[in-house]
Every structure is written in structure tokens, then in C-alpha cells.
């Protein structure tokens, strides 16, 4: 199964594990290259949720009947899996959220509101996703904290020297993507964490694009906050997670109010439960969490190393294949890059490309990728983006290149 043919390796999974890939799109084979937006789901993930609904569905934690116990067991087991997957020692340092966006908002609304003020600064990489910009702008409006972007080079490399020169004890937080969804850049989060901690700042890493490709080890990388989305890692929509360093989590003020997050409620006053419950008000996305657990099982079964090798081999092939297309400019050429190929093509707007490629069964994304400030920095209104996953093949890239040539014919 694994192995390499000529220069590109074969996927370390059976494509038949992904039911959606079998379909035809406008009469063509589907080349799904929009994985940074959301990955497809293996059968095991889909079935874990179907199984839950057909056998175990019940509300968690509060019931004493068998279904509730089964649901609770499966729900709690997923938390242990995720903690292990990212190297967290205590499963209770992992909180379930709606997704990566909510995870970052949770940090902003709890830790941020309590710890930021006009005398503090937040440094965010200039390549951040809106999800790691806007929540802080909203907190800045309330607290007066200053937000400063960490510069990025034309190639999409973060300016670490600038960061080193600008870190001082007024900096409360450094926020950075582990892998850039728009350019593929892999940022040196461990190094940044060390630098941040040296001046007493905390580090928040947006791991949305990394979980399925090269996840952090929150202990080895010494992270304070790590945000994730299941749907970008072969898991379901509607569920994500936030890791918080236990020492910070212990005293963190609650987030949303409601059931499960309280110890006692009375009209005179309410006391709160311990983490993680304190941050998980209301009925959670039980099926989603179980599906997330199944996605982690899938990743563990295939092995992040094998996934990484395969995607690297595709990236190399894709980079040279795209570079050979006349008029095409790759955007994001950092030396340390994940398997994301962002580009522009002379004379064809990315949206038109998106539609034209779709006509050939090739699904890519075009637009600002929720990184408007980065697009402005790079001087492009939008890019087209092919983002790869474990099930992609050389054929997918060849199909993309063929479709690009066809698109050029239409606009010739």
C-alpha cells in the first residue's frame, strides 16, 4: 500500500476508506484539493457517529441509565485520546469547543478579558487567520490592549528577528499559526514559545491546519494554549478543542453559563465546577466528540509520520508541476512548508479559476482564505489554493495541472 512509484509515494490509506472520493463531478473523477477548508471523512469516523446514534445516544454525565453510561464512557474516552495525541499529560486540560474559532474566542473572553489592559501588548503573526485576529480586536475594544502584527516576508516566512527585538515584559501574549492555511508556512512554535516565556508572555498556537499533518506536542513545545478543529483532521464538523496549560486553566474564569459548568446554583449566587466542565456549559456535541475520537484513532492507525512523508512527496511533485505552468506564481515559498500550494495565474482571477477547475472535477479554494491582512501584505486580492491530504495522489495533481491548462485556453 505505502511505497513510492517513480517520485511520488502512494497514499498510506486505501482510498475506498473515503466514500466521498468515489463520486464523479461533472463527469470527471473528483480531485479533492480543498483539504485546508475541510478534510473528507473516513468510513470509520462516519460509522462511529452512526453507531452512537443507533445504539448509545443519551445525554452525558447526568444519567444513571445504561445508554447514558455508554455515551459518557465514549465521550470521556475521546478526551483521553486527544490529550494523548497532542502530548498533554492531563485529559482535563483539553476542553471541547465548537471548533478552532470558538477555542480562540474562549481564550480571548476568559484569559484575555481578565489579564489584558492598556499597558499590555499582543503580538500576532501577520499571517494569522481572522479567527486569531478578530477575537483579539474585540478584546482590545474592551481592555485597550495593543495588537501588533509580527512581520512576514514576501516568501511567507515569519520575521523571528523582529519578534526577538520586540518581545519585552509588556507583551502578554504571542499568537501564531502552527501551519499557515493560506501559504503552507510552518512556524517554529517551540522556538517562539521559548522566546515568549523568556519575557513572561504566554503563547497561543492556532493548530487548525496542523492537527492532521504535524500536530504539536504541547509539553515538548511548551505551549500555553493550543486550538484545534476536528473537521480539518478527518473528524466531523461542529467540534473542536482547546488545550490550556493546567496551571492557567485551574484559575480561569468560566466562559459560557449553564448546565454542567456549575457546582451549585442559587438566586443568591452560583459556584462553578472544576475544569474541564467549568468551560463546557450545556449538552456538548456528543456524537461530534465521539467522531473526533474516531478521527484520532484513524490518524494514529495510519501514523503521522507516514502521512507526513506522503504529503511531503506530493508537495514536492506539486511544486515542480505548478512551477512549470506558464504565468503561474506560487505564493508562499517558505523553506519549511506543509502541503499547501497557493498560487495566482496571470490574467485569470482565482474565482474564475475555481469555477473552471471545478468543471474538470478539481476542487480547490480561491479567495482570501480568511487572511485579508496577509493578502494585503502580499499585494494580492486573492489566491487559488490546492491543499493536500493523506488520500491525495499524483493523479490529483496531474488533473489540477491539466485543468489549469484548459482554463488558460478559455481565457486565452
Amino acid at each position: 500500500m505505502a511505497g513510492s512509484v517513480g517520485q511520488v509515494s502512494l497514499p498510506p490509506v486505501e482510498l475506498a476508506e473515503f466514500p466521498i472520493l468515489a463520486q464523479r463531478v461533472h463527469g470527471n473523477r473528483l480531485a479533492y484539493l480543498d483539504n485546508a477548508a475541510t478534510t473528507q471523512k473516513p468510513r470509520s469516523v462516519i460509522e462511529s457517529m452512526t453507531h452512537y446514534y443507533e445504539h448509545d445516544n443519551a445525554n452525558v454525565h447526568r444519567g444513571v441509565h445504561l445508554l447514558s453510561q455508554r455515551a459518557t464512557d465514549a465521550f470521556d474516552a475521546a478526551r483521553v485520546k486527544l490529550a494523548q495525541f497532542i502530548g498533554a499529560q492531563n485529559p482535563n486540560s483539553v476542553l471541547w469547543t465548537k471548533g478552532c474559532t470558538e477555542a480562540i474566542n474562549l481564550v480571548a473572553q476568559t484569559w484575555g478579558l481578565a489579564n489584558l489592559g492598556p499597558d499590555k501588548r499582543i503580538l500576532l503573526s501577520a499571517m494569522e487567520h481572522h479567527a486569531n485576529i478578530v477575537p483579539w480586536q474585540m478584546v482590545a475594544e474592551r481592555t485597550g490592549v495593543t495588537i501588533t502584527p509580527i512581520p512576514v516576508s514576501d516568501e511567507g516566512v515569519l520575521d523571528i528577528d523582529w519578534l526577538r527585538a520586540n518581545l519585552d515584559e509588556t507583551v502578554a501574549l504571542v499568537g501564531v499559526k502552527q501551519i499557515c492555511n493560506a501559504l503552507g508556512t510552518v512556524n517554529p512554535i517551540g522556538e517562539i514559545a521559548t522566546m515568549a516565556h523568556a519575557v513572561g508572555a504566554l503563547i497561543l498556537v492556532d493548530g487548525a491546519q496542523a492537527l492532521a499533518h504535524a500536530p504539536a506536542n504541547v509539553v515538548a513545545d511548551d505551549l500555553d494554549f493550543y486550538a484545534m478543529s476536528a473537521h480539518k483532521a478527518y473528524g466531523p464538523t461542529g467540534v473542536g478543542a482547546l488545550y490550556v496549560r493546567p496551571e492557567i486553566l485551574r484559575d480561569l474564569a468560566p466562559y459560557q453559563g449553564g448546565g454542567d459548568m456549575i457546582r451549585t446554583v442559587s438566586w443568591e449566587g452560583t459556584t462553578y465546577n472544576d475544569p474541564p466542565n467549568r468551560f463546557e456549559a450545556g449538552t456538548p456535541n456528543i456524537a461530534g466528540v465521539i467522531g473526533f475520537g474516531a478521527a484520532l484513532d484513524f490518524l494514529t492507525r495510519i501514523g503521522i509520520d507516514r502521512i507526513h512523508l506522503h504529503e511531503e512527496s506530493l508537495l514536492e511533485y506539486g511544486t515542480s508541476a505548478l512551477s512549470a505552468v506558464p504565468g503561474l506564481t506560487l505564493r508562499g515559498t517558505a523553506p519549511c512548508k506543509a502541503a499547501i500550494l497557493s498560487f495566482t495565474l496571470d490574467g485569470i482571477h482565482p474565482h474564475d479559476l475555481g469555477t473552471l477547475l471545478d468543471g474538470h472535477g478539481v476542487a480547490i479554494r480561491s479567495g482570501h482564505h480568511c487572511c485579508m491582512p496577509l493578502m494585503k501584505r502580499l499585494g494580492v486580492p486573492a489566491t487559488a489554493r490546492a491543499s493536500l491530504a493523506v488520500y491525495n495522489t499524483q493523479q490529483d495533481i496531474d488533473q489540477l495541472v491539466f485543468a489549469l491548462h484548459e482554463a488558460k485556453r478559455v481565457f486565452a
Partner: protein
Amino acid sequence: MELENLYQEIILDHAKKPRHFGLLVDATHRSEGHNPLCGDQVTLTLEVRDGVITEIGFEGCGCAIALATASLMSSAIQGKSTDEALQFSQQVLQAVTSQCDDTEPLGDLAALTGVRRFPMRVKCATLALHAIQDALTSGSIERK
């Protein structure tokens, strides 16, 4: 897929060589349109004299559909009265969003109806149409 239907000759022509590109210095009306999902953006300026659109100019960045719509519409409504222009833009709007089949009165703009089969692209076409309507209905510039 009817890509040929979407990217008709006339649309590609207007996208590559947009007419009326550039903002007017003496505009009496102005509006801006923005599509938050894709980042497309258009700024539109009109000069209206005695109820007639005497000049029209736009700038913006966007896909071929967005640019062609702005260019085609500008060409079509220059010289029309504001009422006629509003009515015409409404007709075009309906034609690109609904299934109505009488595209005769649209002239060159009939080419835009190909977008109907591409729901995710309809917004590209309507960006300029909404901008024109905004300019005419609420875009009057106060004279200093």
C-alpha cells in the same frame, strides 16, 4: 457544466478590457460594494445631470464575472435616465437570479444569465448591480 455559457465571448471581452474603468472626478453619485465571502470589491461613480446619467466610471477588483457585469452595465446605462437605469438594473438582477426566460430586453446583458447555473457565482454578478442601485437611490454626493 456549461462553462461556455458562463464565460461567453462578450463576458471575457469586457472582463479583459473593462469599459468605463476609472473613477469620475466630477461624480454626483457614488457607492461601494463589497462581497465579504470572496473579497471582491467595486467602487462606482456617476455623473447625473437633469435626471440623466451622463457619465459613469468604476474601479474595483474581482473576477471576470464581476468586472464584466460592471463594464456591461456601465455601457448599458450611460445616457439613460436614472429611472430607466434603476428599472433596467432590476431587470438584469431578476434575470441572473431567477428562472425568467425572456432575456430579449437585456441586450448584451443577456450573456450574464449563464451565471444562474453557478449559484456560488451569482453574487459576483450582483455586486455591480447592487452598487448601481445604491448609487442611484442613496449615493448622492453632497456638493461643497
